[in-house]
């Protein structure tokens, strides 16, 4: 889930920043209200409540400037403000309420887990290859009567 809001304007009255802040706050509060625990769903004798984690953020800023007077012309000034926000949600678990009790069923993110596994495997493979290559290089160098560092220095000279 991703939502972006933003606006820019020139020559803003003092209330413009308040309006912007209010708009962004309203957008974020609509995300906050229903985000974490969803509406309970009834399926026969079981009630399921979906749970999700939500991250939201917003930021705004404003600024102004005045141009220098040139060729006898009057100075001009301008102001502007802008803001934006975004959010991200992901299901975490479901609460299952039945006649036999209440239990929490986790909802794993398979894509993220696969990515984490692949990254870890790649990282481990890199270090293993480096270790094996280093050992092999040192063995060959030793057989020829020198270390890889000596060989590199000899090649450079």
């Amino acid at each position, binding site marked *: 889930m991703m939502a972006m809001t933003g606006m820019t304007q020139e020559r803003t009255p003092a209330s413009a920043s308040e309006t912007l802040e209010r708009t962004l706050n309203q957008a974020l509060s609509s995300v906050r209200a229903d985000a974490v625990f969803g509406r309970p769903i009834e399926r026969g004798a079981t009630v399921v409540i979906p749970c999700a984690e939500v991250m939201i953020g917003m*930021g705004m*800023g404003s600024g102004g400037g005045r141009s220098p007077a040139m060729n006898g012309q009057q100075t001009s000034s301008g102001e502007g403000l802008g803001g934006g926000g975004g959010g991200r949600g992901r299901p975490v*678990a479901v*609460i299952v309420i039945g006649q036999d009790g209440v239990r929490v069923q*986790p909802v794993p993110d398979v894509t993220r887990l696969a990515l984490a596994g692949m990254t870890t495997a790649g990282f*481990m493979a890199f270090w293993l290859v*480096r270790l094996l290559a*280093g050992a092999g290089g040192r063995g060959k160098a030793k057989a020829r009567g020198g270390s890889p560092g000596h060989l590199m220095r000899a090649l450079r000279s």
Partner: protein
Amino acid sequence: MADGRVNERPAKGGQGEPMSGRWAAFPLRSEEVRGDPLSLYGRQVTTLKRVTRVRWPGGVWEWHRPAAVEVREGATVRRIPIRNTTHAATFAAMAVGLLIGASVLRAGKARGRNER
């Protein structure tokens, strides 16, 4: 059936008590928010979420996550934590990778010293 999401309020007492007083203005806040209780099959089920909020002039960042579900059956209250398995597994994989990387690096250095 009551809707568990409306009128959410900060948890009272215990670990989940929200920061108040002079801490309320602090830019970093973390509090536990309790949903309305649901009454089902003779049990009262209450959802609890943890809200972490960072504020700065002109902006805010919030992280809302489910914390636990509280089940009240008669006089007994049971708190079932809601764990994020994806986060746990990701951190575990990262920790294992770092541990193996560090071990390999250490083994390589030790071997280099021995050969010298």
